[in-house]
């Protein structure tokens, strides 16, 4: 696997710049950066599915929400140690993804998109309707602690999230390059051929879906910690769409892309909404233009990641 020195350096500089935010910015900017990183973790998972696996899930928010609610529910029982709540959230995301994925992957293409969207929205309505868990107001939950170390400090929490983001990035890099990742990319490249050499395409896609779900669960758990509450809006299909936008924005067919896209998205959202409450009126057409004018469509940008070993 070859990576040019300049691209490595660029990635390194970029990550360094992000790491410096709490030191050179104020608490509001630190919080914003934390939000971007949390979304980034979710987007990294989605990129695994979309960019490398060719599966366009419009229900990624489902697992984000599951992660958040797992933390919140554990918090209700007094469990706030992140060493416990975060892995539980990941597990919940994986299990949710296995269940939803097993059903959704039975159909392909546009149906898959519609089904994932529908299931995520099902969880949204479910979470609104369950009054026990706060209904449409959600559940408040205290910010967790790391082995006794208090995380209420914005900077401390930022660095925890940053470390987790780095770990997720690294993990995704290993997964993509691994035997599993190669099979996933091969299935995306030519599923019929992959099946004919002996790969159970459905099983590999399901595992990929579960991994993405776990990462989203992790992101959701961190979001619940950050905001100190979990709400149904974390399941909302619009968030699912926003995750896709993040993957596309940064998605130059790289592993760092989704993180870049998440940061870009949060920046765009913040800047635009400072000018006008109708920021979607601007962002919507921007998305449209990106799709229309990227020659061959956005998928081509992402597909470069598919077979090659470029990260």
């Amino acid at each position, binding site marked *: *696997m070859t990576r040019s020195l300049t691209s490595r350096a660029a990635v390194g500089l970029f990550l360094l710049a992000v790491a410096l935010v709490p030191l050179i910015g104020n608490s509001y900017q630190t919080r914003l950066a934390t939000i971007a990183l949390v979304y980034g973790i979710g987007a990294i998972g989605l990129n695994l599915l979309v960019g490398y696996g060719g599966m366009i899930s419009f229900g990624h928010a489902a697992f984000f929400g599951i992660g958040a609610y797992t933390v919140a529910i554990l918090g209700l029982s007094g469990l706030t140690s992140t060493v416990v709540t975060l892995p539980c959230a990941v597990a919940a995301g994986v299990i949710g993804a296995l269940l939803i994925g097993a059903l959704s992957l039975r159909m392909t293409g546009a149906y898959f998109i519609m089904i994932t969207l529908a299931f995520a929205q099902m969880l949204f309505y479910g979470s609104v309707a369950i009054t026990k868990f706060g209904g449409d107001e959600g559940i408040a939950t205290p910010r967790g602690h790391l082995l006794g170390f208090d995380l209420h400090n914005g900077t401390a929490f930022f660095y925890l999230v940053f470390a987790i983001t780095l770990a997720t990035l690294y993990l995704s890099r*290993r*997964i993509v*390059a*691994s*035997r*599993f*990742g*190669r*099979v996933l*990319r*091969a299935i995306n*490249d*030519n599923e*019929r*051929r*992959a*099946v*004919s*050499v*002996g*790969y*159970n*395409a459905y099983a*590999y896609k399901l*595992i990929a879906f579960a991994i993405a779900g776990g990462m989203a669960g992790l992101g959701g758990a961190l979001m619940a910690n950050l905001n100190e509450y979990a709400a149904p809006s974390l399941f909302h299909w619009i968030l699912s769409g926003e995750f896709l936008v993040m993957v596309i924005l940064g998605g130059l067919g790289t592993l760092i892309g989704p993180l870049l896209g998440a940061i870009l998205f949060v920046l765009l959202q913040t800047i635009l909404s400072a000018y006008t409450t109708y920021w979607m009126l601007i962002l919507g057409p921007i998305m449209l233009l990106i799709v229309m004018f990227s020659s061959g469509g956005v998928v081509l940008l992402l*597909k470069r990641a*598919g*077979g*090659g*070993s470029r990260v």
Partner: protein
Amino acid sequence: MSNPMLEIRNLSKWFGGLLANNDISLSVPPGEIHAVIGPNGAGKSTLISQIAGELPPTSGTIAIDGLDVTGLPAHQRAKLGLARCFQITSIFPSFSAAENVAIAAQATQGHSYRFWRPADSISELNQAAAEVLFQVGLDSGKTRNAGSLSHGEHRQLEIAMALVGRPKLLLLDEPTAGMGREESQQLVRLLKEVGAGQTIILIEHDIDAVFALADRITVLANGRVLASDVPAAIRASPAIRDAYLGDDAPRS
């Protein structure tokens, strides 16, 4: 006497009102190159799809090396030793030739739910790929995407991908399709070389290739087996000559 490598019994396939394969029975001993010929619409592709596991039969059974695979999906048959080359070449265009073969080799090594080691660092796979690529005459050093290779090179690559797993049974679907005379003859030579000892089901329209390679020939027409015999007998049969070979009958 050992099991036939491929045993098809009373295989039939209905598509709505159309009987594409009508009570086909076939037995292929190990090591035989068995050609299936017939005019367009005779049901050859349907037969291949059923053997491969892409199409479930309406009735009848398929057994590979004594094992009934009729209910098994395609990927499982591949793991049991079935390899396939498609009529329209089907490879992984975004990967290099060496990676293509390595991916095929990887499939024979149990499951690939392995998430840590970089796939391209596994020397056994790379070595196996390089060996087979050399056998078929492709340069394993080329790192550009296999999608940009020529049509003939795609064929060679497919054969390499099929052979690297040391298959029990190889399905070749019109390998010389789209090739000129020169290229076809080259491919036939290659198949003779690498196919020695291999059990092969060969679907072909190129009669010269068929008679050069086949140990036995089955003639399909209208979904039914018209005849199944050694090439000499098929060639000698006037009925078959007229019905099918016609002007394409090989020069004897």
